[in-house]
């Protein structure tokens, strides 16, 4: 009986020690998890992929009724505005016809100059359309989930995601037919850009705000309010000359820009599968 009591006391003592150090232990585990994420051993990204694969179909099914309602509303409003829309399109068509003539002349001139300089384009660029199914951000991150459909095999992490206005973000995670897109406004986003007018370079970083911050700019750079920043193509992840943001404020110490897209109005996006290694044809031509 006596021995049993001692054993009971010992067990209780161990439990008490465990209880006292439980909080500290779990806190250390959490810190270690952050470190593992920083090192990126692939375990955590694999786990995230699985969860994305499980949750995304559920989200897609949930969005379908709202999408049908939205489509029906759009079609009805388009039906009532068809006369005004037709007039606007006729006017736009006339303007575009004039522009087309000008562009054809510039394109021919460009081709001649390229052949004179022995310049080769990087043609390894393909694009795929995807449907936006859900916003997936919180106060500390900005992202959304897209449905890739048949193109899922060809999409890789890091590819640029654009819409008709410009760059939206990059592919963060691909799981089956779904992918997670990290927006350019996210804190982890860093895009090498160049000013369309002054050709000054910089890095556009996200701050989880509507505005983006331009850093690493040259001392004598002449950025002005309203200038469009396009991707510079440095680093090889994003093709050059994709519009990214418009400069909002250009002071001596800070330069801020606003993205060209409206996150609430994105329905479809285009993924640019971009590879810096040249295609077979270019390689042959280079050889």
């Amino acid at each position, binding site marked *: 009986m006596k021995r049993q009591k001692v054993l009971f006391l010992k067990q209780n003592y161990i439990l008490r020690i465990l209880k006292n150090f439980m909080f500290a232990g779990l806190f250390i585990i*959490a810190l270690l998890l952050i470190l593992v994420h920083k090192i990126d051993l692939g375990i955590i990204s694999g786990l995230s992929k699985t969860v994305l694969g499980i949750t995304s179909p559920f989200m897609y099914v949930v*969005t379908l009724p709202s999408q049908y309602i939205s489509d029906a509303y759009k079609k009805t409003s388009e039906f009532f505005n068809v006369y005004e829309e037709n007039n606007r399109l006729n006017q736009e068509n006339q303007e575009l016809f004039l522009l087309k003539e000008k562009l054809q002349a510039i394109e021919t001139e460009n081709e001649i100059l390229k052949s004179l300089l022995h310049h080769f384009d990087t043609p390894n660029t393909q694009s795929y359309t995807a449907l936006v199914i859900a916003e997936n951000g919180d106060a500390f*991150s900005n992202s959304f989930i897209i449905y890739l459909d048949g193109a899922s095999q060809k999409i890789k992490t890091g590819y640029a995601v654009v819409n008709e206005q410009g760059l939206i973000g990059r592919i963060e995670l691909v799981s089956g037919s779904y992918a997670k897109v990290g927006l350019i406004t996210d804190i982890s986003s860093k895009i090498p850009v160049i000013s369309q007018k002054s050709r000054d370079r910089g890095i556009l970083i996200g701050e989880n*705000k509507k505005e983006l911050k331009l850093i690493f700019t040259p001392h004598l750079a002449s950025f002005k309010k309203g200038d469009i920043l396009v991707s510079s193509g440095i680093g090889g992840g994003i093709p050059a000359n994709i519009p990214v943001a418009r400069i909002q404020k250009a002071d001596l110490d800070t330069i801020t820009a606003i993205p060209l897209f409206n996150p609430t109005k994105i329905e479809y996006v285009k993924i640019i599968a971009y590879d810096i290694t040249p295609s077979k044809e270019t390689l042959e031509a280079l050889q």
Partner: protein
Amino acid sequence: MKTSFKKILSALGIFIVPIISILILELIFYLPRTSSFFNFMRFAPFYTGIYFWLSLRKDIFNIFSVFILGIFADVLTSKIIGINLLTFLFLYFISLKMFLYFNILHFTYSWILFTIALITSLAFKYAIISIFYQTLISFLPILFEFILISSLYPILARFYLYTEIKFIHLEERYENQ
């Protein structure tokens, strides 16, 4: 044999109820929306749930429940694994310390204490993220998130209270104490 197995299941069930209630609310809050405004209240079920269950049923909601919820939140956001877990553990620690010094007799006191615990936890999360990215991020979204979650607390607490009354028997509550 059957009765003992049933007893084990019911005992386990009591521990699962708080976690399940939080996860169900979280899934509702995670439904896709067209506005980024809803992003700021995505984590409301987690913060409110952890605080509420700790204040009401410390016997069935312990540090392991917080750990499970933290891992779930991290995997769901797939951003930085460990950040939410660390924040939830911090909220757990702060809440426990608060309950040591304050005897909550009225819901309003509980709400006030929740706002203090929440702002401290969010400030802690802000600090970790700033260290991780080596830059000071904007504090305004966090402030907005704080206001939204704080104002949602009474509604969500009502749901948790309903779950507690509906799925955990009163007898078991007194038996465990």
